[in-house]
């Protein structure tokens, strides 16, 4: 790399790193503060809580009915994962392998739900879902969450499928595989890493998706992040520590999947994958 040892350059580099360190320190301190508070007995006007206890977790568990909320959260998340995988991978295969009139328009159609922020399309979507009678139900939440995740899977999978040489498929056909067998024996095994990565990211997104779930969920179809929102919103009612305990539980449920996903993808891809598409048009 080009070496620059002038004082100006050194100052500049120091300044850049100082900003990074400042940011990371604040981020870490914020997370540590939540965790400490969730284990603290009383924390008022001091650097650290007066003592430590695990009772807030039991309190949060029963107060917020986390058992039920977690079950609903994962039911919704896994159904969203399965459906977006099914719809997304098949569509991605078609888009990766075929050129047809209007393909650009179809790509734009899949790009829009990722570019338009959920709160913007969530309000008309919730309106329609309530009118159709699924608003406030389990399936309403599933449908709303699928809106960004299906296009997400498609846009992640297209480049992944494109890099598989079509000649491999041709070879499988020459040796007698029909479409179904081709898919099961040849394509699927090769696509597994990509599908796994895409679906794990869908899982992380769905567990963390606040706006769409918030707008479409009823009392029995809340996910953890929405329950967390309501408890923070009404924070005077409950002890701060038990809200923090719930926040820690939420962090764990998200981060476990994130860490697994990061074994398959680069962190930059989590934000960049779907976003690079418009630059190429």
């Amino acid at each position, binding site marked *: 790399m*080009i070496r620059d040892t002038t004082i100006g*350059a050194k100052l500049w580099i120091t300044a*850049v790193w100082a*900003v*990074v360190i400042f*940011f990371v320190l*604040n*981020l870490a*301190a*914020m*997370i540590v*503060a*939540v965790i400490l508070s969730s284990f603290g007995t009383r924390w*008022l006007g001091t650097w650290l809580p007066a003592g430590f206890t695990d009772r807030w977790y039991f309190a949060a568990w029963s107060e917020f009915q986390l058992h039920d909320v977690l079950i609903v959260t994962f039911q919704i998340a896994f159904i969203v994962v399965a459906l977006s995988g099914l*719809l997304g991978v*098949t*569509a991605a*295969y*078609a888009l990766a392998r075929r*050129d*047809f*009139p209007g*393909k650009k328009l*179809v790509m734009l*159609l*899949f790009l829009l739900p990722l570019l*338009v*922020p959920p*709160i*913007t*399309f969530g*309000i*008309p979507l919730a*309106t*329609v879902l309530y009118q159709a009678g699924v608003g406030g139900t389990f399936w309403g939440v599933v449908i709303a969450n*699928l*809106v960004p995740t299906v296009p997400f899977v*498609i846009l992640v999978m297209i480049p992944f499928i494109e890099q598989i040489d079509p000649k491999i498929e041709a070879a499988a056909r020459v040796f007698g595989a029909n*479409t179904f067998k081709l898919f099961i024996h040849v394509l699927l095994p090769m696509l597994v890493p990509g599908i796994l990565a895409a679906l794990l990211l869908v899982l992380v997104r769905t567990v963390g998706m*606040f706006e769409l779930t918030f*707008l479409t969920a009823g009392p029995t179809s809340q996910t953890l*992040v929405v329950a*967390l*929102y309501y408890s*923070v*919103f009404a924070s005077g009612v409950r002890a*701060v520590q038990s809200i923090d305990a719930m*926040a820690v539980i939420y962090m764990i449920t*998200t*981060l476990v999947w*994130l860490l697994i996903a*990061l074994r398959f993808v*680069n*962190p*930059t*891809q*989590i*934000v960049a994958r779907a*976003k*690079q598409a418009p630059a190429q048009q």
Partner: protein
Amino acid sequence: MADPQPSLRQRLALRGIDGVTLLALPAILFVLAVFIYPFAYGLLLSFEPKEGGALANYQRFFSDPFLYRTIATTLWLAIPVTVISLALAVPIALRVRLMTRQRLLTTILVLPVTLGTVLVAEGLLNYLGPQGWFSRTLMLFGVIEHPLKLTNNYWGVFASLIITGFPFTFLLTLSYVTGIDPALEHAAATHGAGAWQRFRHVFLPLLAPGLAISACLSFVQAFAVFPSAILLGAPAGPTRVISIAAYQAAFEQYDYSMASAIAMIMAAVQMVIVVAILAFRNLFYRGSTAGGKG
């Protein structure tokens, strides 16, 4: 006897439409049904107000300061956040590009993006609060005498948007920066360009299209700020952003028509800014950032 005319199926196949193409159909129909249709429905609904003429909702929005000021309030959050995120992301990405072990940093930075705004708001309530570590540390070093008021006002929302927005912009920018062939910088240096000239004449023009996309996305996300504006801000006053107005219309006043109108205005403002940024982008070179045949 063989048909001299190709069959419809053959003609379609020639244009790229066959059984494989049809695999895309379920997803297309799904997105049409749950994204395009609700949007179109919302647009039409916004012209069918509870009372008054077709444009009554829009007239009401733009005549009621409690409503139309939400646009300025939101812009006042979203634009500084976008500019600051981008201004920090570019130099840091140019530096991080040189690191051999970027993974740890990028992993740390992806955390706030995945944890989401609700958790960040919850965490900041404690951390930035009057008894929180942030004010305490500043007081320890004697920078301030009394705790700063950073929650339930503009700055709380601003901080939460930076915490989720900066990593997002940074990771996106990093992916563009690492796409530039390092040989181009070498070529510029050997032919006499100093550090600033290399940035000005080589990196900046090559990054401009990517930075425009980063700016659009981080602006759109910041403009749609919602939970943190309620939890960390002052949702009745200084941080009454446009999404709060839309939410209240829909779920507190049950005026779906008005809510749709506000959502459409929200989308329109986003589109105006995005179009402006993209138009600016078109002034720059767009294409490969590689230095030659690979």
